[in-house]
């Protein structure tokens, strides 16, 4: 697979002159690499772990590439999304010909894809850090790809800084762990790291991991880069970033917390749970307020990372309480949501990419009416919206059901504080879920329904076949993974059993039914629900046609109260979310103002204007003071940099003397 990725990159570089050939080769080979990745992960599930050793630097010991079930699960999600993104690119990238460097894109895309695959495959601290950094750098360059667009450079820069802050924490955490265990190998770390470390040391290692990986995953308040960078990247890259890359942080967080540190301290889980709830709620509230379609999707990624962390936090709490069965249940729910979110979020990003491609704008205020102009894209986006809003029998519903069940079963913990915290998390999750549905009604409604609100939307054309094919693959998977979830859970359980040590696959699936046992059985059968709903709709259609006889069905105008309707009469995305904004205003602190034309009389306004803006609270109240403080300190410190060589020599001499005195 690496070889194929390398070939794809080289092919891209070699065929630099012939841009179309370059695109076909690069993405074709990437697609093949993705299929290979998928086959690899399937073979891991069926036949057991894959390990591969090689020696790069004799003094560092062998570099191990190992794919266990957990890695295989993430590899599968990388491969599926990578495959779809590669196919999509065949139809999507040609639009950049003549505007931006095609070679650059075609060379970076395989590097990004392969580095993600290698991040999950590496089983050595150094190897992992190398590929982690390669992944960050290649995605940074891809975010900055459309550099002529407004804001691209600053978004990429913010991403660059945050990614490296995160990497610094991750490196500190992992290197400390390998120091404590005396080995760079993950397997050795898992065996020995926990033993020699004090509670304080383990807690600080966990906090470092949480901050480091959290920065990549986009937890509040470290999420600020995500809604800037993800939408700025070309849509096929946004799909990979939102669908897969943020999950890799979750992957390593699971590995660090469970395998390296053996979660045995209760508050780690509670902290994760709290951060998850906060992230979910803040993410969805900002998603509802957003007018940029891709940025709204990016905020929804923040929300889903929160949901994933809620499940992960619950798993950690159960694990710390030695309730391994429940820990396994929560972890399965968490991993399922990771997998499912990668499917529907990349579908949504690709479909949004088609819309942006067709209209040339990301502003939902200027869209509308696209369901008639882009019939298939609208259907595919709709499938994604149903999945993410947890509508049965689509996949988002299944993972949300399991998360609710595992949170509910926390009542078996004999600790009232933990019980109440879990109940609060449950309430937050319920609120988030309901708001997410509101958010996607708004997005789908304002992008695809009613009349077009701008000339570009009126002229929009359906996406080309490559793009539609890629999205259809994901859409079919969104439905199938939901309907057949009882068949998928055993694989996910294999991954979680490797981590938690207890397998519950046979307990929570019973044929076509998912069951959770908390004294009495609670069950759901997605496939039967799907079959019933699927049968009921045509049955109802036939029944209604026969009842009451044949009737006419005429086309007419929308009811207009006597004045012809224009696109200005429609509800806009701003209008649609206004009530929610108003109710949650203490959290948004939005500013809105009316303007009147002063020349007109106070009773008949000739010209009125309304503007409202939502300040970036985290930037304003958290990041700016920090940035200002750092700049201030730097300014003070610059006093010692006078620019004269003699002075610098004096500093060096002084430092030397002090060091000699201290480490004599």
């Amino acid at each position: 697979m690496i070889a194929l990725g390398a070939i794809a990159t080289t092919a891209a570089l070699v065929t630099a002159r012939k841009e179309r050939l370059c695109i076909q080769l690069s993405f074709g080979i990437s697609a093949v690499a993705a299929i290979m990745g998928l086959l690899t992960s399937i073979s891991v599930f069926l036949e057991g772990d894959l390990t591969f050793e090689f020696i790069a630097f004799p003094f560092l010991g062998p570099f191990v590439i190992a794919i266990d079930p957990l890695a295989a699960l993430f590899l599968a999600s990388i491969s599926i999304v990578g495959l779809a993104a590669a196919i999509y690119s065949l139809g999507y990238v040609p639009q950049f010909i003549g505007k931006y460097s095609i070679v650059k894109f075609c060379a970076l895309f395989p590097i990004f894809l392969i580095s993600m695959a290698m991040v999950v495959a590496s089983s050595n601290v150094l190897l992992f850090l190398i590929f982690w950094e390669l992944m960050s750098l290649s995605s940074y360059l891809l975010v900055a790809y459309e550099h002529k667009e407004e804001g691209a450079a600053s978004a990429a820069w913010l991403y660059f800084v945050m990614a490296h802050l995160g990497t610094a924490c991750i490196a500190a955490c992992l290197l400390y762990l390998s120091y404590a265990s005396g080995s760079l190998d993950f397997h050795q770390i898992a065996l020995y790291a926990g033993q020699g470390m004090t509670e304080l040391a383990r807690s600080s290692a966990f906090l470092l991991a949480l901050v480091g990986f959290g920065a990549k995953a986009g937890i509040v308040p470290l999420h600020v880069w995500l809604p800037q960078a993800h939408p700025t990247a070309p849509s096929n890259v946004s799909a990979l970033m939102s669908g897969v890359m943020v999950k890799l942080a979750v992957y390593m967080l699971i590995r660090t917390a469970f395998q390296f540190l053996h979660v045995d301290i209760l508050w780690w889980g509670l902290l994760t749970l709290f951060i998850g709830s906060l992230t979910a709620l803040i993410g969805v509230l900002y998603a509802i307020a957003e007018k940029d379609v891709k940025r709204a999707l990016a905020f929804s990624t923040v929300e889903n990372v929160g949901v994933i962390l809620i499940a992960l936090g619950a798993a950690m709490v159960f694990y710390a309480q030695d309730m391994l069965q429940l820990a396994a249940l929560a972890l399965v729910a968490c991993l399922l949501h990771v997998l499912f979110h990668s499917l529907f979020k990349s579908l949504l990003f690709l479909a949004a990419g088609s819309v942006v491609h067709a209209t040339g704008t990301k502003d939902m205020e200027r869209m509308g009416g696209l369901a008639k102009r882009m019939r298939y894209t609208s259907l595919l986006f709709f499938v994604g919206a149903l999945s993410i809003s947890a509508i049965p029998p689509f996949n988002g519903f299944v993972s949300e059901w399991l998360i609710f069940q595992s949170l509910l079963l926390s009542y078996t913990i004999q600790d009232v504080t933990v019980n109440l915290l879990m109940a609060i998390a449950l309430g937050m999750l319920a609120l988030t879920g309901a708001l997410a549905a509101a958010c996607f009604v708004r997005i789908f409604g304002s992008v695809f329904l009613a009349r077009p609100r701008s000339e570009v939307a009126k002229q929009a054309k359906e996406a080309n076949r490559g793009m539609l094919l890629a999205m259809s693959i994901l859409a079919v998977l969104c439905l199938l993974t939901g309907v057949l979830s009882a068949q998928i859970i055993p694989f996910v359980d294999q991954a979680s059993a490797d981590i938690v040590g207890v397998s519950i696959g046979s307990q929570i699936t019973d044929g076509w039914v998912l069951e959770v046992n908390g004294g009495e059985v609670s069950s759901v059968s997605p496939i039967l629900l799907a079959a019933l709903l699927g049968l009921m709709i045509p049955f109802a259609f036939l029944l209604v046609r026969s009842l009451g006889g044949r009737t006419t069905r005429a086309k007419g105008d929308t009811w207009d109260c006597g004045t012809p309707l224009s696109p200005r009469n429609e509800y806009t995305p701003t209008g649609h979310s206004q009530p929610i904004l108003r109710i949650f205003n203490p959290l948004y602190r939005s500013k809105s103002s009316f303007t009147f034309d002063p020349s007109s009389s106070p009773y008949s306004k000739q010209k009125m204007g309304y503007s409202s803006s939502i300040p970036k609270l985290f930037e304003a109240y958290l990041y700016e003071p920090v940035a200002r403080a750092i700049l201030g300190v730097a300014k003070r410190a610059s006093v010692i940099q006078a620019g004269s060589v003699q002075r610098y020599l004096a500093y060096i001499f002084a430092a030397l003397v002090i060091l000699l005195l201290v480490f004599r």
Partner: protein
Amino acid sequence: MADYLLALVQTAVLLALAPLLTGIIRKLKAWMQSRRGPPIFQPYLDLAKLMRKGSVVSQDASWLTSLTPYVCLASMVVAALLVPAFVTESFGFLGDLIVLVYLFAMARFFMALAALDAGSTFGGMGSSREMLVSSLIEPAILLSFFTVALLTGTTSLVSVTSLLATSGASLIGPALLLAFAAFFIAILAENARIPIDNPSTHLELTMIHEAMLLEYSGKDLALMEYSSMVKLTLFITIAWSAFLPWGVATQVTAPDLALGVIIFLVKLLALALVIAIIESSMAKLRLFRLPNLLTGAFILAFLAVMSYFVL
């Protein structure tokens, strides 16, 4: 097999009674307001009349408008399969209380989108407000369901009903009553009743649910209207079955079943009467007063969960 047959009969009864319940509420309201009111079977006649009428579809609307009435009906019928009314038999293995919430969410998701589809201002208004109300009330519903799940150790509605019904009155405590109160507010909010919405108004600026149906006519409208009638019946049935199921038949014997049916009808009538009283004695709340009531429901539900753990 006989069990499933009984469950099917129960579902059929729920589906058949739905318009009657709406008719009864209208009649009760009319009496309280010193009117004679239409006969209680009027909703059946209305539906039959609509089925014979042609429909006009907006030329701005897309495929979604045509699909939505069938999806709404299908989700309500599937939900009706999961709800025990007078006997604790149902297709409960299909889905639990959480599934019920999401089946209702499914119908709402489609309805709120169909409201936007024709590009009418009223539709947009309805859609926007419906999503506001639902996003505040859905957490309250889920938390009140979790209270009974905590009491019984399961989220399966049939198990909840039979466990509560056979356990005597000892389980009636603050948790159960608070959760019931929260769910009662949810009945009003989810079914567009006063004080959240007014089901009989067509006053343009205040309507929520009616605004969403404004563009529907003929058979499509009949389906949408019927779906909301079923939804109201289901909510009232769930309120009794999930929180205060005493009287439901837990064994399939003729006397138990007869008693179960009678008690079920009395229960339906009781809540219909309460709704009619509320609707005759209160005015609709202003839109931005609603969050107070809805978050009140959320807090009641949360107190219910708390009282389970603390008391």
